[in-house]
């Protein structure tokens, strides 16, 4: 079997394991055999399972696992996509202003929006914020250095992210009564994930990830640099724009249902490169598979480590991600030297 085939197989097995673990683990014990039977019959309640247990599975655990999977897949795939088009191993939804923009949008909605409209105003505002954040970074990056240096875009993203975060902090200070709500939201809120969140995120995630998946071959072309990619007949600015829009849509969808969860876009693509090589033909599909698994597993940690309390999921990804980020930084520093 090819390296890619083996890696994909591992990815599918890990994802299935993560999904089943996510359904099994929780304060209410449900027999594993019953859960498996319930799954393979698509929700036909086995005799040994009570109605209450079924409700826990269907109303609480299953949507939570699906949302975690969608969010993980989105963040990992968009991280990989940003890394390809900006040719920067540290590019990530957080570095480019996407997440900060989403955060600001959400904060505005929470602080100034109608108080009873939390369910839809926040995600829509987050999406608009994410696109505005990346758009701003893109415009600033293009205008500096004539847009020729790819790094100028990432630097612009960092500047935009700091700026938007500053505004967000200011707004939070102004509206301290919503501080707690915003704060909980920012650190991730998979704890309340339900079918509404699945319905909210699914269309954007599917559209964005399918787009990235479809152009993964061209991400390899863009990796040889703008000039060489143009000499191979690729319209580089157009592809870069398409990929940025798709990745930002995925990021916004993730942020709008789960809040700000950092580092997934860096951890997962780098890990799958070690497993299946550097070609985006494998990096992208594997990032989707392992990104989903990773976040489902981290979410299990988040709700069990300090049970009955929950640790915000963003705290755990940051604890894993920050050292990982440092390692990648050191490695790319050595490669450049």
């Amino acid at each position, binding site marked *: 079997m090819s390296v890619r085939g083996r890696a994909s197989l591992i990815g599918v097995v890990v994802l299935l394991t993560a999904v089943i673990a996510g359904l099994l683990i929780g304060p209410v014990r449900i027999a594993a055999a019953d859960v498996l039977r319930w799954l393979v019959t698509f929700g036909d309640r086995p005799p040994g399972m009570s109605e209450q247990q079924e409700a826990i599975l269907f109303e609480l655990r299953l949507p939570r696992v699906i949302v975690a999977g969608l969010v993980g897949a989105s963040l990992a795939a968009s991280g990989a996509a940003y890394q390809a088009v900006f040719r920067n191993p540290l590019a990530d939804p957080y570095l480019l202003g996407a997440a900060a923009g989403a955060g600001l949008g959400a904060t505005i909605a929470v602080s100034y929006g109608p108080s009873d409209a939390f369910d839809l105003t926040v995600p829509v505002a987050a999406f608009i914020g994410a696109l505005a954040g990346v758009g701003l970074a893109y415009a600033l990056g293009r205008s500096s250095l004539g847009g020729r240096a790819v790094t100028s875009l990432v630097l612009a993203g960092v500047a935009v992210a700091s700026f938007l975060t500053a505004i967000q902090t200011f707004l939070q200070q102004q509206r301290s009564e919503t501080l707690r709500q915003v704060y909980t939201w920012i650190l991730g809120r998979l704890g309340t994930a339900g079918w509404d969140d699945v319905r909210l995120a699914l269309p954007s995630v599917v559209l964005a990830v399918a787009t990235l998946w479809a152009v993964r071959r061209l991400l*390899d072309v863009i990796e040889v640099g703008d000039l060489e990619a143009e000499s191979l007949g690729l319209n580089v600015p157009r592809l870069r724009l398409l990929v940025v829009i798709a990745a930002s849509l995925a990021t916004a969808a993730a942020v709008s249902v789960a809040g700000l969860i950092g580092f997934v876009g860096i951890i997962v693509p780098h890990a799958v490169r070690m497993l299946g090589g550097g*070609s985006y033909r494998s990096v992208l599909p594997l990032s989707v598979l392992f990104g989903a698994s990773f976040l489902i597993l981290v979410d299990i940690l988040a709700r069990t480590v300090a049970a009955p309390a929950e640790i915000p999921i963003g705290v755990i990804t940051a604890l894993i991600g920050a050292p990982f980020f440092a390692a990648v930084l050191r490695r790319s520093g050595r490669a450049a030297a």
Partner: protein
Amino acid sequence: MRDGATALVVRDLSVELGGRPIVTGIGLDVPSGAWVCVIGPNGAGKTTLVHAVAGLLPHAGSVDLWGRPARTLGRRERARAVAVVPQLPVIPEGVTVEQYVLLGRTPHLGLLAAEGPRDHEAVGAAIERLDLGWATGRRLQTLSGGELRRVVIARALAQEAPLLLLDEPTTGLDLGQQLRVLELIDELRRGGGITVVSTMHDLTLAGRFAERFALLSAGRLVAEGSRTEVLASHVIAEHYGAAVRVIDDDRIGWAVVPVRDSEA
């Protein structure tokens, strides 16, 4: 259409970068199947000329490929006619030789198309042509400079473009590798009907492989023609600012030899 016609006709080509003229008023004719070498001192505009011909830089003047104005060709169509081997190719990390050569098929595929048997056939042929069969699954980082150069040429061959532009194809290679790469290009040209335009610094090697020469100096074409016309000691002395002796005898062969002031 491609046989017999002139492969490349450049007329009055000028490129400005940041308001500064880099090359000005270049005219060049390259017959189908020929090897034309663009020479000139550092900063003369050789690479700029190559990039303009490939359509990678905005330029004034015209570029015709087999009688068709290059402006009228789409990006992919142009990339199917002209392949570029850059002087310092960007080597992506963690990618295998086969995946890299496959990039050469980009202009043959639509935005969302996947490679078909025909594409894999072209890649296989290019890999075999460059004796890289042993390396298909190897990652690019594990290859030597000479092997990498061959892989980049294989990518250009997989592109199946009849005009091959090579920017300093021997940079960074040892003498043996330089000879092997140039012999290979010559074989491809003679056997595969490919037209070659290359830039080169080593005038002895250039003189032994190319058929015609174009000398650029300060962005202008100052001499064009055969080896005896362009690679003459007084011409080289004037534009490179170096004293040379051009040797052509039966025992040594043809060579451009630098002369130190103390020897003059």
